[in-house]
């Protein structure tokens, strides 16, 4: 096992704990936007797709990565926008926009 892998595993283990801590604090009220918002975050695979699509010399790899890039961008753009649209609707009593 090389040092890089140990480092990655450390980060992974800490992120698991942090993830469960953070998510368990999100109220059920916001679980749908939580889901679509984290979903957009999983679109971070877009950076992997950019790396492969932008640097590979193989036609096949470029094609695979290009499709991945399109899918990941849909995930990112669609996810963040739809989450924003939902969160905009949550208003407190008497707040502006509340006819």
């Amino acid at each position, binding site marked *: 096992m090389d040092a890089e892998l140990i480092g990655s595993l450390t980060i992974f283990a800490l992120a698991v704990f942090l993830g469960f801590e953070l998510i368990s604090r999100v109220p059920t009220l916001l679980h749908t936007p939580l889901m679509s918002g984290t979903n957009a*975050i999983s679109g971070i695979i877009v*950076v992997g797709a*950019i790396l492969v699509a932008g640097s590979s010399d193989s036609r096949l790899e470029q094609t695979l990565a290009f499709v991945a890039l399109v899918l990941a961008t849909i995930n990112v753009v669609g996810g*963040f926008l739809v989450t924003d649209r939902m969160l905009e609707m949550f208003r407190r009593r008497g*707040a502006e926009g509340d006819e």
Partner: protein
Amino acid sequence: MVAFAFSENTVNLAYVFAAVCFVFGIKMLSSPTTARWGNRVSAAGMLVAVAFTLTLAEVDRYWLVAAGLALGAVLGAPAARLVKMTAMPQMVALLNGAGGGAAALVASAEFHRLAPLPGDLPADTLVASLASALIGGVTLSGSIVAFAKLQELVSGRPVTFQHQQAANAAVLAVALLCAVAAGLTEERFWVVPLVGAALVFGVLFVIPIGGADMPVVIAVLNAFSGLSGVAAGFVLDNNALIIGGTLVGASGTLLTLLMARAMGRSVANVVFGAFGQVAVAPGTAATVDGAVRATTPDDVAVMLAYAKRVVIVPGYGLAVAQAQHDVRKLADELERRRVDVRYAIHPVAGRMPGHMNVLLAEANVPYDQLYEMDRINPEFEQVDVALVVGANDVTNPAARNEPGSPIYGMPILDVDHAKSVVVLKRSMNPGFAGIDNPLYADPKTAMLFGDAKVSVAALVDAVKSV
């Protein structure tokens, strides 16, 4: 093409920044007042990660990258803008599938690039790339089936056949064998049957799960899409991917457990429940026959107008009838008469975790009127009228006191503790679980039959003229 290129270290620092943004963004989701900015903080992190990746010296095929980004944005943005709030589960299913598919493709491309290199690949890279291809493939096809079911392109009913579990196990075994073969031989070819088997398994995994259990399925697929991202992060040694994917995996896992608990079932039961399902003999437990009391909008209006506290219990039937706005008008009318109005939201009231809150928020219901189950249940005894609109199983007292009932053990809203109950219902058909609801035969319950939207509109008029 660009005049400058940041070093790999600088780009890795940008990824750390992105990861911190994701963590902060989710932290800000813990309150509805900061949630919107939280989402923007996450998005900003993403933008930084993408922008810095583009500056890497090895990324030089800009036209291809730009075309991919543009095409993705052109497809994603209008979908996000136009999708109906009732269709949010389908949208999230598709987005899960896109993320999982992207991870599977990136992992496959990496395997294709790395496999023929001289020398053995590090074991972790091998395992991670094959795992990413496998989980990503399952997520992609499973999400498409979930989408088709939710969109009612195919029947929402469980699809079962003989020896289904054996067939599923066999397909999964084929996928795993292909992965082992790919790992041992480092032959590119093996990825093709691996992904193929993963796609087939994704379909088989979701088809036996019924429409009512879709909230759990979406949460499971959400977790999978995160995990496939984590695996891809290990392949690319990319910490932003590992952290981002893990946060999503944690979110999907927690929501899965929460949804299963809200249905009073184990995750295994939801996922494998359709197999060997025991048919519920109709009318064995609590039969509701002629004993229900029908009422009229005028009578209900009087009850509501002179009540001190009214709790509205919305179910998915309300969303199907598009009655959210009418319900809100009714609540406005009652509040004008100084009635305290609250909404009791069961965790599985909609088609995905938290769905009902979004649907009511869209109808301009203020979120401080939305009460989750654990918060509202102790208060039902002081409630004058509980108004049940399009909800059934989540109000069924049999879940609490009849061990023989198929929904026994499922946490419910204690509507029957209220002083009186009014149920708006199209007809006496039983709910999702196909069982009778003794609440309807309770002497303090009155039934207002008809389409929810029509009934609520009639109530609004009737309350106005009380």
